[in-house]
């Protein structure tokens, strides 16, 4: 059985080298090459490759963001020149990676290991992604990759199995739980004010009491969000009237 493989790297020479190393693997068929993260997302969803050689630093989207958007968690070999922080996390989760420049032997080893794990879902890649502190949120919405800077977000609402991200008057749905997103956000900037709501602190204009023990948070854009009792405990330090 031949394996379908996708090469993702922004440097043409790096892709050439991978092709060369793959020449002696007759059971592997290269089905595509991508030079940036956005193309990689499309190719992974369309071609469903068995194996992906994925560079971490790329234009548009990073390697980890590509996996997050596609939900892909098996058959991935990361390639990188140097990233001391990412590599520490990779070691911790036993995710395979190739350090550039790598030899044919090291490359074959990684391919062999990937073959034995063929079809096995890696639970450690989602964990790795979940542990990464977010700098922005990436979502694929109607075939388009949206990149949302954290500073533009007003609030995030939980809706069944989705979260609804609201920023600059726009909103988009993403499959993720509110709690897992909360863990990825800086608690100095984002606060969970309710079971179903996370708010960016600086988006809040003030708190309003609507009854004896019910509060709402009023945002700069006029939106009013419910504040639960525990949410009020978390937020009141920032808004002592």
């Amino acid at each position, binding site marked *: 059985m031949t394996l379908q493989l996708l090469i993702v790297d*922004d*440097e*043409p*020479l*790096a892709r*050439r*080298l991978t092709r*060369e190393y793959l020449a002696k693997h007759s059971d592997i068929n290269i089905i595509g090459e991508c*030079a*940036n993260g*956005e*193309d990689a997302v499309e190719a992974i969803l369309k071609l469903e490759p068995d194996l992906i050689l994925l560079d971490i*630093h790329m*234009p*548009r*989207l*990073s390697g980890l*963001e590509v996996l997050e958007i596609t939900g892909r968690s098996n058959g991935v070999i990361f390639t990188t*020149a*140097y*990233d001391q922080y990412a590599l520490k996390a990779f070691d911790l989760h036993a995710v395979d990676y190739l*350090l*550039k*420049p*790598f030899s044919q032997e090291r490359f074959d080893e990684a391919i062999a290991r990937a073959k034995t794990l063929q079809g096995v879902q890696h639970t450690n890649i989602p964990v790795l992604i979940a542990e990464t502190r977010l*700098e*922005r949120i990436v979502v694929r919405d109607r075939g388009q990759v949206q*990149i949302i*800077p954290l500073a533009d977000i007003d609030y995030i609402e939980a809706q069944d199995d989705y979260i609804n991200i609201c920023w600059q008057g726009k909103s988009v749905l993403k499959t993720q739980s509110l709690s897992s997103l909360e863990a990825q956000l800086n608690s100095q900037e984002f606060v969970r004010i309710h079971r179903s709501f996370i708010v960016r602190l600086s988006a809040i204009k003030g708190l309003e009491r609507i009854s004896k023990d019910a509060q709402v948070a009023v945002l700069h854009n006029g939106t009013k969000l419910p504040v639960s009792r525990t949410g009020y405990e978390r937020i009141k330090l920032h808004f002592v009237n």
Partner: protein
Amino acid sequence: MYPILFQLRYLPWYLCAWAIAGVALAWILVITQGTNWNAALLFSVPALLVYGFMATSAYYICRSLPLANRTAQRVIFSFSSASLLSAFVWLCLCLLFNNLVIAIGLQGLGIAMTPQLIAVLFSVACLAYLVSLLTHDVLIAFENIRDAELKRSAAQVLARDAELQVLRSQINPHFLFNSLNSISALTAIDASAARAMIIELGSFFRKSLALSSNTYIALSEELALCEHYLAIEKIRFDNRLTTDIAIEPESLSAKVPPMFLQPLVENAIKHGICNLSEGGVVSIMSAVHETWLYMTISNPIDSQPSSAAGTGTGLKNLKARLENLYGDRVRMTWQKNQTSFRVEIIIPLDF
């Protein structure tokens, strides 16, 4: 901040000293005027404690006349007028207090004010205020020396940080390993291109080591270093990286600190070209106007927020390094808009 009144541990000692002076004055009164001890103490101790507070105002007078730009006339005028004024105010207070004590009619208290005594009190108060002025001058001088030392050590730390930054930019591991990977690819497909890249890489590292040991180099040398660097990056990024270098011939001989341009070029690629799928142009421009060298480096950036956005530490460090070398005769500014980033530096040609 006033050194005595605002440091509580000094205040008791200060008051103690003035209280002792008060006892001494009482003793003089007893001996010369034949006043009884109770009356003398009741008058002199409060009077001198009050004067102790009045004398602290000397600090502000000393401060208003910085040691660096004093003229004899101004010092004599302000010191003597301040002394006379405070002695006069104090004497009025003393007389008022003494009269009050007498008016209340406490038995045997209050002292007899003779014109001689008033004259003595006035001149002693003047002298005491002068002494206070001189003491504060000394205190302020010590304070200035300590401040200057603090500033100097802070500047040294900054200079060392800048030095470290230079060393670090020589060996950017990401650049080195990616270049080695490109060479590794080229060996099989284009051996002579691989050799050319190794030579560029060697020249870049040799030049950066040689240059960074100097305090100043010619701009032409810094540009040569950047060209080696750009040649390597052009092989890596293929047609994604193009350059537009416009150098005025007069600026080539300008003296500049080593490795001041290279980190900016590196940033332009790392935070600009790297994030653009279709690549872009890095522009370097230099010009000489009168006695100033103008440099501009600009690059396109992704309009979407980047995952590899810089924190600006590199720019701030470079600015600190330039300010350390040229003081306030250097201008370094950077602007970022939706699609481009631009750094401008103006440094003096003569220094």
